[in-house]
């Protein structure tokens, strides 16, 4: 196990970089996904089309193809940036499609009677949405949204594979590469690194779920 114990520092920075990519992409995906979910439930057809095209395209394209298109396509049209930001952008775009679907299903899962009741006591559209529907939607959305984000942490490895250095996956590649360290201990190290990120995320998710769960 020397391969792991000798390189704890490297693994540490790998975990931190992966966490950094995940946090930045997660925030981006949450913002974009919420906007797209808003588009999809809005009454204006053009916005609905944009929302559903967004989801269809990004959900059916492999993340690696999204990342390649951004990383090799954007410089072609004169947009230059670091691989890190291209990677974060790609992961955020890809994840936003799944966030959008999770949020939309949450809004749809609120019983129609809730909104009807709110309207019947004279609430406006804004009040109905913010006081009655959204608080309930948020609660049903917690489990699927959490799963999307846990999957996103794992998907950040693909960002590493496409060219961002220093994340956990890249550390594994680096350690098994030129130096030729024993492959299996390095794999165990990388696996532990991802588990360090995904298991607490899963526990937090479970906690949040219990805290906000409502019996239907």
């Amino acid at each position: 196990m020397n391969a792991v114990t000798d390189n704890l520092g490297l693994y540490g920075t790998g975990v931190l970089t992966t966490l950094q990519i995940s946090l930045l992409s997660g925030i981006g995906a949450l913002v974009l996904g919420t906007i797209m979910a808003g588009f999809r439930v809005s009454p204006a057809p053009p916005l609905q089309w944009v929302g559903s095209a967004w989801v269809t395209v990004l959900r059916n394209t492999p993340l690696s193809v999204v990342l390649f298109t951004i990383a090799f396509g954007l410089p072609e049209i004169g947009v230059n940036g670091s691989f890190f930001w291209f990677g974060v952008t790609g992961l955020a775009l890809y994840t936003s499609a799944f966030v959008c679907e999770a949020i939309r299903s949450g809004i749809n899962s609120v019983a129609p009677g809730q909104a009807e009741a709110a309207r019947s006591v004279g609430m406006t559209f804004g009040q109905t949405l913010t006081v009655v529907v959204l608080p309930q939607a948020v609660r049903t959305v917690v489990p699927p949204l959490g799963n999307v984000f846990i999957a996103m942490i794992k998907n950040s490895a693909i960002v590493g594979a496409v060219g961002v250095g220093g994340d956990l996956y890249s550390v594994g590649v680096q350690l098994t590469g030129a130096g030729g360290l024993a492959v299996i201990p390095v794999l165990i190290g990388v696996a532990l690194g991802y588990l360090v990120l995904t298991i607490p995320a899963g526990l937090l998710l479970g906690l949040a779920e219990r805290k906000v769960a409502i019996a239907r």
Partner: protein
Amino acid sequence: MSVLYDIPGPQARRRILIGSLIAGVVVLAVLVVVILRLAEQEQFTAEKWGPLLDPTTEEFPLVWQRIGLGLQATLAAAALAVVFSLVVGTLLAVTRIVSAPWYRWLVVGVVELLRGLPVVVTIFFAARALPALGIDLPTLAYLVIGLTLYNSVIIAEIVRAGVASLPRGQAEAAAAVGMTRGQSLRLIQLPQAFRVMLPALISQLVVVLKDTALGFIILYPELLRTAQIIVQTTKNPLQMFFVVAVIFIIINYALSRLATYVEKRLSRSRTTPDGAAPAPVVQEGAVV
């Protein structure tokens, strides 16, 4: 119509129409800006698109022949990975259901470990660890092994959910006529579970197909890797990756429509006499 607003009257309909027009104009404006920007950077030239669209150029037949081969390689990897995942996943699920408590934790541990690993890691290390152990295989095998490691545990969970969603009476009746746990699973529960989980399995096919595009890290010549190679001569990354994305979108969209169709058909035909439909096993948004 959403529950969030009333059925619109004439005034609201006018407002929605105006809103739609504004939104439509904004969307069109964004598209126009993007297209102008692309044109300005000479992304619509015959030089860039010719090899992909113009049959008279000399690259055209070669490029599409290679894309065809790449697509074949992608589909072969996906098909093999799905078949193996199905077999291994079912075995895992059955082991987990019938195993004695003293080794069930082992199965659960393996499932949880593989679920926590990114699929790109399992592919990379299948290609690195197996040769290190003295097992040399073609790259296709490494990709299939990597994909199977990851997807078999997902399928195991789908199978387990499928079996759990069956009415308890099915297993009880099997036990009553003297079947063992194994017989009842094999002859009574699994065939029914497979039917219930068919839509979830088709959705998982989309995930596997998308993940084959990770074959590029071990230089397996699937679609994305093929595109990477072609781009080196044609120098049109944006156009090439766009075409690859379109191919994936068409196939995957067709698959997800098929899953929805199968799910609708099953839910229609599986209603019990008292009208209670079985709980769907397909979780929305599970395909990431």
